[in-house]
């Protein structure tokens, strides 16, 4: 009996001590987590991927009705300006048809010339289409979560494109989920060329809607309205994906507005260029995983 009482007294004391220092312990624990995260980034990366994989089914369930609601709101908005929109689209269509003719002619010509010059093209790209199931947009991150992962053939560093242009690159990959880091994120650095002058530059994000162009040579050649495309340097990105348009050239540097509309993204395509393993020193064009064939459609 006495032993049991002693035990209860001791347990009570321990409980009181824990309660008294509870706040301190919790604060210490969170600092500890931050330090561990700084020291062992692989561990944190794995934890992130695990959390993403666990959360992505739930997010997918939330994303569908949310997307439907967003679409309904957008539809309502468009309804108001249907007539003008129609006129604008008809005009644009006429213009694009003219462009299509020009593009067909150039493509034929290009193919012929390539044949003559015995030109070797880079590896073919295949696409994996993905739904955006989550936004990881906060004051500090610009990104999104996709519902495809390693099983579908997604790998770290692949380019993510929309119909309009480049959206970002894959930053983390889980089994069935992946995180995209948008080009507007503060951590994003992208080797690009100015389409008109073929000048090389680095396009950096700073979490604002516009991007900053850091030129490697001179600023003089860049004009407002110049298109910026990926240069393919660094190897993981295909050459010539449109990224954005120069909107400002002044004292504050060159600002670029991305073509992709990040506020309306619903589906994106992950570009499997087949050279992501270059970073690890692998062969130039490994066979794409079986899953990629199933989910993604090959182009050309």
């Amino acid at each position: 009996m006495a032993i049991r009482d002693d035990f209860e007294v001791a347990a009570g004391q321990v409980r009181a001590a824990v309660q008294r220092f509870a706040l301190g312990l919790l604060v210490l624990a969170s600092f500890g987590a931050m330090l561990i995260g700084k020291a062992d980034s692989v561990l944190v990366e794995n934890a992130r991927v695990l959390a993403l994989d666990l959360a992505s089914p739930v997010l997918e369930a939330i994303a569908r009705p949310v997307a439907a609601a967003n679409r309904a709101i957008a539809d309502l908005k468009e309804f108001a300006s249907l007539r003008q929109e129609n006129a604008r689209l008809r005009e644009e269509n006429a213009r694009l048809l003219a462009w299509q003719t020009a593009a067909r002619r150039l493509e034929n010509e290009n193919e012929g010339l390539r044949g003559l010059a015995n030109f070797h093209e880079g590896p073919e790209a295949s696409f994996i289409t993905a739904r955006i199931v989550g936004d990881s947009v906060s004051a500090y991150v610009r990104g999104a979560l996709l519902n495809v992962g390693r099983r579908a053939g997604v790998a770290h560093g692949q380019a993510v494109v929309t119909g309009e242009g480049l959206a970002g690159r894959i930053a983390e990959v889980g089994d069935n989920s992946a995180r995209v880091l948008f080009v507007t994120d503060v951590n994003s650095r992208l080797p690009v060329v100015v389409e008109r002058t073929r000048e090389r530059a680095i396009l950096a994000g700073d979490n604002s809607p516009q991007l900053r162009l850091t030129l490697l040579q001179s600023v003089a050649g860049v004009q407002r309205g110049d298109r910026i495309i990926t240069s393919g340097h660094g190897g993981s990105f295909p050459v010539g994906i449109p990224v954005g348009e120069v909107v400002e050239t002044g004292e504050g540097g060159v600002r670029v507005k991305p073509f992709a509309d990040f506020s309306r993204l619903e589906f994106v395509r992950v570009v499997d260029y087949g050279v992501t393993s270059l970073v690890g020193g692998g062969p130039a064009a490994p066979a794409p995983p079986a899953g990629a064939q199933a989910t993604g459609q090959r182009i050309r």
Partner: protein
Amino acid sequence: MRVDGSLAMLDRWGRLMLPGAVLLFFVLLTLAPLRAPYLSDALPLLPVLVVFQFSLVTPERLPGPFLLAMGMLLDLLLGGPGAPVGVSALGFVLIRAAVANNRRYLVGVPFLFQWFGFCLLALGFVLLVWIFTSLWTWTAIDPLQAFIQYVVVVVLYPVIAPLLARVRARDPLNVPELSRGTARPGETTP
């Protein structure tokens, strides 16, 4: 000793789990691709609102270690590469402690006082995260976006907080000491 039917037990467990489940829901909701202007800005701070409000009305159902776990989950889900994992956890824990130590000024007082308290604590949270993230990544992050988030969530508080406050036990005297605060018998504050 009370003998409970299974329904009563379910009810008790439900009550016990509800605040945690709501917090988990809001943590997951921060990632929902909601494209409403301004509203989607506030999503990352809504868990802070939940933590504040539940620490106010029912702290015993939202223990510190649970908050720590939820904060870590939020950081893991939200943070990009290089962002500190655990800073939200630290913020949550500190908010809970701050509310617990200032119940005198926050429980059983007019709603405006609670709102003011939330303004202060949320500002502290935003500053904490901003400072830590800036230090951790060693870049000067534009604080404007964080400030917009803060303003939106402060404006949203009167809309969401009364709903969350309904999880408290009906009678202020029929609850544990910790969450009773300065409430008197017969008092029914919102």
